[in-house]
């Protein structure tokens, strides 16, 4: 019984996740600035063309870099990619900005907080 359930569960996993993918990139100590921003992207002709040509992280301001980038493809996006033989490959990019460094420690009476 358990064996049959395991097999059925495995089959369901394959069907539900077929064509999907997700890759997360982040530093060892992420310091997130602002909320995650979601951009839908499409790659055409095996990545010869991309819409938009590159993902511009416009919400990262004043020297902020990226703290986290997630590239993902859901079942529908995977299906479009599969039936078009990869000529149209949609995906979703989610990026989050990084705080631009750690502010120094201040002191309540002014100046710095003592050698941080």
């Amino acid at each position, binding site marked *: *019984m*358990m064996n049959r*359930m*395991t097999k*059925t*569960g495995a089959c*369901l*996993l394959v069907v*539900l*996740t077929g064509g999907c993918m*997700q890759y*997360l990139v*982040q*530093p*060892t*100590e*992420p*310091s*997130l*600035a*602002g*909320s*995650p921003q979601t951009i839908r992207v499409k790659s055409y002709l095996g990545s010869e063309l991309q819409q938009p040509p590159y993902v511009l992280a416009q*919400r990262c*301001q*004043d*020297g902020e870099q990226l703290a986290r980038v*997630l590239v*993902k493809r859901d079942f529908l996006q995977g299906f479009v990619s599969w039936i078009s033989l990869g000529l149209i490959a949609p995906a979703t990019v989610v990026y989050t900005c990084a*705080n*631009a*460094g*750690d*502010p*120094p*420690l*201040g*002191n*309540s*009476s*002014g*100046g*710095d*907080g*003592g*050698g*941080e």
Partner: protein
Amino acid sequence: MMARQPSFNPIKTWKNFHESYEQVIDGEFDVFMPQQSAPLSIDDLKETTRQFQTLIADARKQGRKARAIGSAWSLSRAPTTTGWALNTNRLRGRMKIDPADLDAGHSGTADQKAGLYLFQCGNTVADVNKVIESKDQRRSLFTSGAANGQTIVGATSCGTHGSALQHGALHDHIVAIHLIANGDSHFWIERKSKPVMKADWVKKLGATLKRDDDDLFNAALVSFGSFGIIQAVVIETVPRYLLETQPGIAKLDEKLWKAIGALDFAAHPFFGGLEPYFFQAVINPATDEVLLNANYQKECPADHVPKYGLTQDPKAIGPGFDALSTVGIILGAFKGLIPAFSQLAVKQLFDTQKKTGTSGQIYGYKPPLLHVASGSIAVALSDARKTLEALIQLYKDIGPVPLVLGCRYVKKSPALLAFNKFPTTLAISIDGVDSKSSRAFFAAAADRLEAKGIDYTQHWGKVNAYTKERVLKAYGGNVAKWLKARREVLPDAKDRAVFDNAYIEERGLAG
């Protein structure tokens, strides 16, 4: 140079960090530090106050709602707004409190006076640890939640706790609060019984000092963003220490019940007759197996340099960022897989490696996972066994559920709506995968405890089944005191309406 002004982002959908819910909003404002690379000054705090006051006044004028959003870590809808989300996670100024700025009535020891820090609301728990645990500061938080990504104000406003046996929760570090209430007023709130800053210092900040009693402070301490925007808090710290973790697995027998249900550590050989600084027991109701974690306090060498970053074996294989959403669907359809999954999940959700480090290292960065489910119920230690047995029975009645029961212990807090309201509180963290059966378990857990006549509270920042009646039953007269305190800082109903949300309305705390 003119300070950077808030920047509007016209997004219409906001999600919490773990993406367990979505909220429709009118847009988001990113708020910036006036000076990113200079030490935080009173002028910086005044400029940020002015910016927040302008945003709050504009929201009120336009009939909108607004709330501060930190790391969006909460699994409950406590921080949500239908109006403007004011994103605070760039406000990471930090300041050491000079003992010369302390009020003459400050009753602390020299060590306590030297261990006070002001943190702006956007500092995460990780940020706080990095500052205070540095080789130069050599201080520590006395307790910490399991994660470090929450902002210090977000975590404390929702009642995050740890399991340091002789200490309160994370919010019990706070001794002063800088609250921006509306377009005209901002307050520096302390307890009458525990004055902290000199009135002159508060005057320089331009804030109104409020320390006529203890109730206002104890109300604002756990208020989930309902009193206005907490721009900064002053926290107490303790001398830096190390924790040596001792993980293990044991059967849930009578000896272990004595440790879990009465903190009698002499009863079980796992503890070797020693009382740990931190203790956690994770019960998998699908088996009789309990994952134990006892952390012992050690002296920290003066030259210790904590390293916090995540590490991983490039060849390692583990759950992906969003693995749990699919797992939840599968386990919902095939409940027979749950016991096997639970055993795997316990090892993913809870650290089972033996290690030594500062509090910030032990409760440090975790691999991110979406669609986790987590709710917590707190009871008096004297009700521990009765409550756990009731929840284990509920698990059996509902059928296997992808959840485990984590037992943690915390001392009472003076906060009026503290999750840790009992002299020794057992906080039962119900953790696992977000699924239909998990949600059914959360909903039924409160009913089951009520049927057993057990007095309990629920974690404000996690999935909870609080209603107006349940909040009243849990906190009695403290609810009226909390509402009175809210009216003291927000006397005009239109100002209160800015910070009202469905979460506090459903719990009888709005208006």
